[in-house]
């Protein structure tokens, strides 16, 4: 019998569309009947949307870039 545990352990395959048809059907049936699992899947998907936003976060300030430029100029001889 498909349980909440199986939803949790197959969630990555579900998100990545890697589940075999039988497992997919069972997961979707269980999730449709189980509000806890529905909430789990929905919050899991939302979490991935949030973490995807971190990609565009700027880290390197003009000062950091400038310090790198100075360092490279001082240590690297022209080819």
């Amino acid at each position: 019998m498909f349980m909440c545990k199986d939803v949790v352990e197959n969630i990555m395959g579900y998100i990545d569309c890697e589940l075999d048809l039988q497992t997919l059907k069972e997961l979707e049936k269980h999730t449709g009947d189980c509000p806890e699992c529905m909430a789990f899947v929905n919050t899991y998907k939302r979490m991935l949307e949030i973490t995807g936003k971190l990609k565009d976060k700027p880290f390197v300030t003009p000062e950091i870039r400038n310090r790198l430029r100075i360092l490279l100029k001082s240590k690297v001889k022209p080819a």
Partner: protein
Amino acid sequence: METGFLKKLINIIVTKDNEYISDKSDEELVNLYTEIGDENAFDEIVRRYANKIYGFALRITRNSSDAEEVFQEVFLTLTKKLDTFRGESKFSSWLYRITVNASYMYLRSQKKHESNISLENYYPYDEKGTLMGRVMAKDWSSRPDIIIFSNEALKIIDKSINELPESYRTVFHLRDVEGLLNEEVADILEISIPAVKSRLHRARLFLRDRLSDYFHEWRR
């Protein structure tokens, strides 16, 4: 005139124009720098990867001055070792691998050790395998985007990622923040694909729980 020389000459002329430089693949930039010492090509590599390398170093070291040390070391290494890039993996993978190695070496030199706790037994269900009473009460998935993607929520997730043990943190960063494939992450970190999947799975479960706690508290 030799064909190789002509090609190099054409490259020099073409790369005077930065529009052409930005159109070139990473591998072409590497060739331009290693074969004719084109500094524009190196600058373009820095432009493309500075933020990614600094962000990854920061994720491993969790300290901005340590991250900058690693960041500088990576680009210094690059000036010395760019000609050893053989194109066996993607250039970005090769660069991330240099960053991992430089980060570990730096942390070792500073005697900064991190206990690597395992999350292998981290799961949200109870001993009977059910989620009963554990998720729905804290369901935040239908909150408006303005709250979900607020700066504070982004800070919480960023902080929570840094709470992950190092081996999970690096996998999560490369896979879910940088968006690399499982195969690429496995190649960079020199671990198996099942290990990537396993660490990513536990890291995501941990982070989903952290966000649930945050949004649940926030509602109060």
